[in-house]
Every structure is written in structure tokens, then in C-alpha cells.
């Protein structure tokens, strides 16, 4: 008779217990960019909806920004580093190919011997990492997970590429996920479009590029249905959604997704994250930065039902419903 493998007792659910974010000090306005490339404030605002973004300092890293956001999330949750048993970082701009980012974040925060790995699902990364945390907790493998989204995109942007240099910024957001008696994070609706693997990527020289029109079409047509799937999977009525927190790709994409969700049953007075206006596109950091700033502003409140959806290079996407901490 062969040995039987057992699994751990299942935990009913997980919840976000706290959040935090970090934006670098340096503000870069559209006028600043217009000094070094052929662009202007009006064009950037109408095409992508960005007024200003943050650029990391030379000595700031994906890990250092992630640790700052993670530390704030722990404080917000009232969780000490020794209680954290798993660290998951979503990033597509890791400081090194090896080692991964989470281990440096854990070392910085004094988190001892956690389960530690990174997720690269580009701008969908935070929702993938949150799903991994939820699943690690519900299967009993983890009790308290620090989920970080951190990006230093400016390291991968050709500063003379006026199509992309205007869009991206740097920063980090984080969430502490703990076990809960009742689920406060719904099932993830994830998937990808394997026919568009090269629609967004890096060139041989290492610069980020994207096929703007194809990506815009995909994002404005394929992503609202993902969000609707996520709500349905959680058994949540769209009319009960209080906050929409999409990846901050482009204000026109965000508003197009919101219009579709409202026509599908989301209340017209839903509060929509528009953080791109003052933070730019920070890839996997954009959802937690945007949501945490809405919390700071009182626009997202504890207990609110949040519908989050990320989408980006791959092309890949993921979304889920959760309660705002």
C-alpha cells in the first residue's frame, strides 16, 4: 500500500487586513516632459489622462519601494513582521533577474523565513498575487501574507520614446492578507490572450514598447467582461459594487471599462479609481496605490465592496471582488 498524501484543513476565507503605498518624491509634470521631447500637456491629458507622474530616485529600487509600501500595509493592519509567513511580490521590473524581489523586501522589513516568491503578470500582477495569497491561506499553507506590487518602470523606458515615456511612473502598493472566518476576497477570474503575446513587451535594447491601438481595443472590449465574471464568481450583484479599482493603464481605457460596467448593472455613482491622473501608469503597483489613495481621501471606506481588475502584457488579465480594509 502506498502512502496517502493529505492536505491541510481548509480555511473558510481570507481578507485584506490593511494596505499601504509609496510614491517617490520626484513629481514629473507634462511640461517637464515637453522640455526633453516633442509632446505637450494638452496632448498627454487628452490621450492618456495623465497630469503628472512620479519618478524614482537613482538609489530607489523595486525592493526598497516595495518594502516602504509593505511596512505601511503592516502598520495599517496592526500586524507585526514576525506574524507574516509569506511574501509575494508582483513586478515586471525586478531589480535583478536573480534573486527575486520578495526576499529583499522580507529582509528589509524583518520578516523571518517567510515563503517568498515573485509573480510576473505585468499590469495584472497585483490581482494574480492577491489570488495566490487568498489560495495559500484557504488551503492552510499560509496564515498571513504580505502582497506587494512594486515597479521601477522608468528604468525600462527609452526617454526619447514619446509614445511610452509619457505614460509610465514608479511606485509601490501593498496589502496584508490574513485568514478570515468568512471570505472577504472572492474567486479570481483570470485568463489571457495567447494570440497577442508580443502586443506589449521589451525590445532587444530592453525598452518597453506597446502596440497602442491593438492594446487599447483589447482593453476597452475584453476587460469589462472579466470584471463581470469576477463579480459573478463571488456571487455578488453588480449593483452592490461600491468601488471600481482597475489597473491604471490610460484614463480613457478606465472610463470605457467603467461605462461598460455601469451599462451592465454597476451603480452610476460607483467610485472609480482615477489615480493615473497624478501617479501615471505604475503597472502592478497601480491597483493598490490607487485604492489606498482612495482610502486616504475617504473615497473608499472600510467594508466597501471593491471590484478590481488588472490587465497587461501577455496579454494577461485577472480580477476579483474583495472588501476594502
Amino acid at each position, binding site marked *: 500500500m502506498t502512502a496517502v498524501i493529505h492536505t491541510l484543513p481548509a480555511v473558510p476565507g481570507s481578507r485584506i487586513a490593511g494596505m499601504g503605498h509609496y510614491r517617490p518624491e520626484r513629481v514629473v509634470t507634462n511640461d517637464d516632459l515637453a522640455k526633453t521631447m516633442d509632446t505637450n500637456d494638452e496632448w498627454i491629458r*487628452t*490621450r492618456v489622462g495623465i497630469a503628472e507622474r512620479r519618478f524614482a530616485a537613482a538609489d530607489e529600487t523595486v525592493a526598497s519601494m516595495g518594502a516602504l509600501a509593505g511596512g505601511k500595509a503592516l502598520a495599517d493592519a496592526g500586524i507585526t513582521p514576525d506574524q507574516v509567513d509569506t511574501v509575494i511580490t508582483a513586478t515586471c521590473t525586478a531589480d535583478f533577474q536573480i534573486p527575486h524581489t520578495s526576499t529583499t523586501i522580507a529582509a528589509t522589513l524583518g520578516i523571518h523565513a517567510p515563503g517568498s516568491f515573485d509573480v510576473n503578470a505585468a499590469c495584472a500582477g497585483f490581482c494574480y498575487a492577491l489570488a495566490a495569497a487568498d489560495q495559500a491561506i484557504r488551503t492552510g499553507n499560509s496564515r498571513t501574507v504580505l502582497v506587494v506590487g512594486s515597479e521601477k518602470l522608468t528604468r525600462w523606458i527609452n526617454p526619447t520614446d514619446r509614445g511610452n515615456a509619457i505614460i509610465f511612473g514608479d511606485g509601490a502598493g501593498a496589502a496584508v492578507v490574513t485568514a478570515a472566518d468568512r471570505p472577504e476576497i472572492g474567486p479570481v477570474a483570470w485568463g489571457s490572450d495567447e494570440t497577442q503575446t508580443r502586443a506589449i513587451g521589451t525590445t532587444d535594447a530592453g525598452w518597453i514598447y506597446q502596440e497602442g*491601438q*491593438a492594446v*487599447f*481595443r483589447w482593453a*476597452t*472590449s475584453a476587460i469589462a467582461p472579466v470584471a463581470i465574471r469576477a463579480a459573478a464568481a463571488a456571487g455578488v450583484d453588480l449593483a452592490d459594487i461600491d468601488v471600481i479599482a482597475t489597473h491604471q493603464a490610460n484614463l*480613457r481605457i478606465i472610463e*470605457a471599462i467603467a*461605462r461598460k460596467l455601469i451599462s451592465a448593472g454597476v451603480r452610476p455613482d460607483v467610485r472609480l479609481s482615477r489615480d493615473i491622473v497624478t501617479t501615471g501608469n505604475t503597472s502592478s503597483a497601480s491597483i493598490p496605490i490607487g485604492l489606498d489613495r482612495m482610502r486616504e481621501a475617504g473615497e473608499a471606506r472600510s467594508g466597501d465592496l471593491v471590484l478590481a481588475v488588472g490587465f497587461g502584457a501577455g496579454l494577461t488579465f485577472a480580477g476579483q471582488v474583495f472588501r476594502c480594509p
Partner: protein
Amino acid sequence: MSNEDILAGLGEIVEEVAGVTAADVTADKSFTDDLDIDSLSMVEIAVQAEDKFGVKIPDDELANLKTVGDAVAYIERNK
């Protein structure tokens, strides 16, 4: 669905996406020159028209739809 119905439906989409009054969306108007619609809004209009009229409007075809009349004719032919 008649050409008038397609035109009316297209007018509603253009109004929602670009804030142009539907009544101004007439067959002779150029999307860019007369209605001041940029290429990203054209993509949004195409995506909504695909849903509404059950047609496919790929980017290379979209580039040829200069006037509202071009779009109505394309939808009529391909629906």
C-alpha cells in the same frame, strides 16, 4: 436593419464615446475633420459598433472609414 437605423445607432455610440450630439452625426461628416474624433475614440466606436451591429471592424478596415457614411456602408455590407 435599414441604413437609417444603422446611422441612428452609430449616432448614439458617437455621442456616448465622443460627446458629439447624435443629430450631428450625418453621413457626409468626416470623423476626424468634422467631428473632431481621434484614433483612440475611433477604436472605442468600432468596439461598440461591433457589439451593437454584430460586425467585425478590424483596425486595418477601421482606418478606411473616413466618413460616417463609410462606416454605415461598411456595417451594412458586413452585418
